[in-house]
């Protein structure tokens, strides 16, 4: 049974390992995955802990439904205090690692301390070993994975690894599994590197009992039919996530030249159809691949067609890669985007943060805030493809003054560069915004401003707000499982009703992150996709646990509150530009210059934005400063946290 999966406490300093069951009462409060990780982080770290110290804890988990007969139960979650933001570090990835961890007997790993020398963990059928990783240190993410398989003489071992960027403590180093499945945001690879932990390898052959197998199978089939019949996932399954980039760019919702424009012009070479051609030419017509148990198959397999790495096999590129190495630095060549994609995948570095940092530096260079001396002679203007590729390598290797400076993340770099460089850094809570431009979309702006891990779309983005769905359809979605009779609007440019949508999505995404299901299997891009009602059923069929849709909602609300409590404990203050729920001034001061007629000239109205934040706080049961009210904590059963129950 999924409920038999255990939690392991691993101290890398002492080598001590303790294994415990996860009590059902804890499951009922936090489910698993990201939600339970948030509970563990709040309970196992002390206020003000140095993220790079042995006292920080690294949490690696599979969702409650990992490897069960629900659909796309593939996601691995990693959490710690972030060295990039000094706040909540949290990242989530697809692939095949989480199911393997579950088959090996575990759902949660709590890793503290620091290994004396480079090490990796090998987890197999209830056993955990700490092994020497001396021969793996310095190797790329894929080389590391294949070397571990060879050493363990088992090609079925699945690994979660860091690359050279994590070893060099690049603050936005990622954790990776497979060719390109990345936990990119908030620099969890940096935390692994700080613990001398090169990899976690898993291999499992233990049964996961299914409580009601016939029902689970039939419901899974229904899920698949529902998802496979939707246009959005059919397109996703053909063109991958680049299709979203193409669609968003067409109306003007993509950051270009850092944040100067909201649309990337003359981008034919990086349009999704062009990338699809490259994948077809190099890997054949059936080049899409899927994560565990998923029928969306949204990632492309391809070989680099040209450039210094021509012929190398890679996967992607993703929606975010096109923004990071295409629109933001204004480099519009497929070869450049694919080269950078390959490099960050091999180095183990977040594509978004890397691209955003370089684009910011390009703007500073053009403004004269960064000099050619500071760029170590690189002509770092927008559209200089060679400079972009070179900077990716320099950041990973911390080479040169600028490479080393940018590797420390946006806020420290802005302090080092000085002058008014910070004004141009499009970040929230110390993490750069993804490549989307939210100036014309108040709901999306509220999402990035208030996301618990910094500027990010996967925490609370009401992406369907852009579909202009009829109000009655919106009402059907957003009035369940808790009633809502406030305003809702089909118009993406208005401010009314958006806080509720953001609040609802925040709970929706938390729920799937607890279950370990991919967001493409929920109301993210597909308004008709599975929902709280469906999850109540899959939980029952697969684990035997009884939850009502409202129970799941309550768990999600609780888990979001505990993430908030962690952030507040570590210094989040509402209007702080570096650690708060606040946007860069450019959202308020610089109107959109390109895009569809209804987009040109739009910007975020600061007063209305502040009122949206107020309203969101009310929905979340927070006071005006964004702190949970005592009655909220009581209602959610969090008044005695940290409770140290696990």
């Amino acid at each position: 049974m999924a409920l038999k999966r255990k939690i392991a406490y691993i101290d890398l300093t002492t080598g001590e390992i303790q294994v415990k069951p996860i009590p059902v009462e804890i499951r009922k409060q936090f489910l698993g995955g990201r939600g339970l990780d948030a509970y563990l982080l709040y309970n196992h770290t002390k206020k003000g802990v140095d993220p790079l110290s042995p006292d920080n804890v690294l949490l690696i988990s599979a969702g409650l439904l990992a490897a069960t007969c629900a659909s796309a139960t593939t996601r691995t979650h990693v959490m710690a205090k972030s060295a990039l933001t000094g706040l909540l570090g949290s990242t989530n990835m697809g692939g095949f690692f989480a199911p393997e961890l579950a088959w090996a007997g575990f759902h949660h790993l709590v890793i503290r301390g620091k290994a004396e020398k480079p090490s990796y963990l090998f987890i197999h059928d209830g056993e955990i070993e700490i092994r020497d990783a001396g021969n793996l240190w310095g190797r790329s993410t894929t080389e590391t994975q294949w070397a571990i398989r060879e050493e363990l003489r088992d090609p079925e071992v699945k690994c979660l690894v860091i690359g050279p960027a994590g070893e060099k403590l690049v603050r936005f180093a990622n954790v990776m599994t497979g060719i390109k499945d990345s936990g990119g945001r908030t620099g969890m690879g940096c935390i692994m590197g700080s613990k001398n932990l090169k990899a976690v390898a898993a291999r499992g052959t233990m049964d996961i009992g299914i409580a009601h197998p016939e029902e689970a199978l039939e419901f899974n089939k229904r899920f698949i039919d529902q998802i496979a019949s939707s246009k959005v996932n059919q397109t996703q399954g053909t063109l991958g996530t680049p299709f979203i980039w193409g669609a968003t760019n067409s109306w003007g919702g993509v950051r270009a030249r850092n944040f100067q424009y909201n649309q990337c012009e003359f981008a034919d070479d990086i349009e999704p159809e062009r990338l699809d051609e490259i994948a077809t030419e190099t890997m054949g017509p059936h080049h899409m691949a899927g994560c565990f148990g998923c029928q969306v198959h949204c990632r492309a397999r391809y070989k680099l067609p040209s450039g210094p790495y021509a012929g190398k096999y890679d996967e992607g590129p993703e929606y975010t890669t096109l923004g990071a190495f295409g629109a933001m630095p204004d480099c519009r060549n497929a070869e450049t985007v694919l080269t950078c994609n390959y490099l960050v995948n091999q180095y183990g570095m977040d594509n978004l943060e890397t691209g955003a940092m370089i684009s910011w530096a390009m703007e500073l260079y053009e403004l004269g805030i960064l000099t050619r001396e500071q760029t170590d002679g690189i002509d770092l203007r927008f559209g200089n493809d060679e400079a972009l590729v070179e900077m990716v390598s320099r950041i990973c290797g911390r080479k040169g003054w600028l490479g080393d400076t940018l590797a420390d993340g946006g806020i420290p770099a802005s302090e080092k560069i000085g002058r008014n460089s910070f004004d141009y850094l499009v970040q929230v809570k110390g993490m750069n915004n993804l490549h989307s431009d939210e100036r014309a979309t108040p709901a999306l702006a509220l999402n990035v401003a208030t996301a618990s891990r910094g500027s990010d779309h996967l925490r609370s983005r009401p992406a369907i707000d852009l579909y202009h769905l009829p109000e009655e359809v919106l009402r059907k979605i957003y009035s369940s499982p808790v009633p809502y009779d406030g305003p809702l609007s089909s118009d993406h440019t208005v401010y009314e009703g958006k806080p509720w949508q953001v609040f609802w999505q925040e709970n929706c995404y938390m729920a799937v992150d607890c279950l370990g299901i991919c967001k493409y299997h929920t109301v993210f891009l597909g308004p008709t996709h599975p929902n709280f009602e469906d999850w109540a059923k899959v939980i029952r069929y697969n684990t035997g646990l009884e939850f009502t849709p409202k129970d799941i909602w309550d768990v999600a609300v609780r888990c979001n509150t505990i993430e908030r409590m962690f952030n507040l404990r570590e210094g989040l203050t509402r209007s702080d530009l570096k650690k708060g729920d606040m946007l860069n001034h450019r959202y308020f001061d610089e109107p959109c210059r390109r895009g569809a007629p209804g987009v040109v000239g739009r910007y975020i109205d600061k007063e209305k934005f502040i009122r949206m934040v107020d309203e969101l706080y009310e929905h979340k049961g927070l006071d005006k400063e964004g702190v949970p009210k005592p009655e909220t904590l009581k209602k959610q059963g969090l008044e005695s946290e940290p409770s140290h129950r696990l």
Partner: protein
Amino acid sequence: MQKNNKILKIDYEKCTGCRLCELVCAVKHDRVSNPVRSRIRVIKWESEGVYIPVTCQQCEEAPCVLGCPAKALSRNEDLGRVEVDYTKCIGCRTCVSVCPFGAMHFVATDRKVIKCDLCDGDPQCVRFCEVEAVRFVDTRDLGLEKGREAARRLQAADRKAVSLLGAQ
């Protein structure tokens, strides 16, 4: 005419590598999730992006049937499959050794061999594979589909050759 002419046909180039077939196979047969209990396995070379589902071919002259010292394996013509009679099986794993496809598996925890039984005529791997990398098709014209694809390629090559000649 035979009662069942259908076989599992695998178009490996269509496989997305998701391993849902492994999951549903184990759940259907053993009511648990565990790929080591699956009768179909997706073999992968991840560094090249190659995924190939492998399962029992239900051979006509099956090495497992020929090799079984206990005569526990036999062909069931009604269901078009090779099947194990567990009342006769002695667990010697000869079938695992002789199967040229690696499609016989030994489940270490249960101490027994397992193989594809076509789910008695409704293979779950086929039912769940949305991209149709695994299909349940009639054997009567098995080669025709491939033949058509090959013919199309030949025609395209022929046209190209004609145009090249014309250019000379």
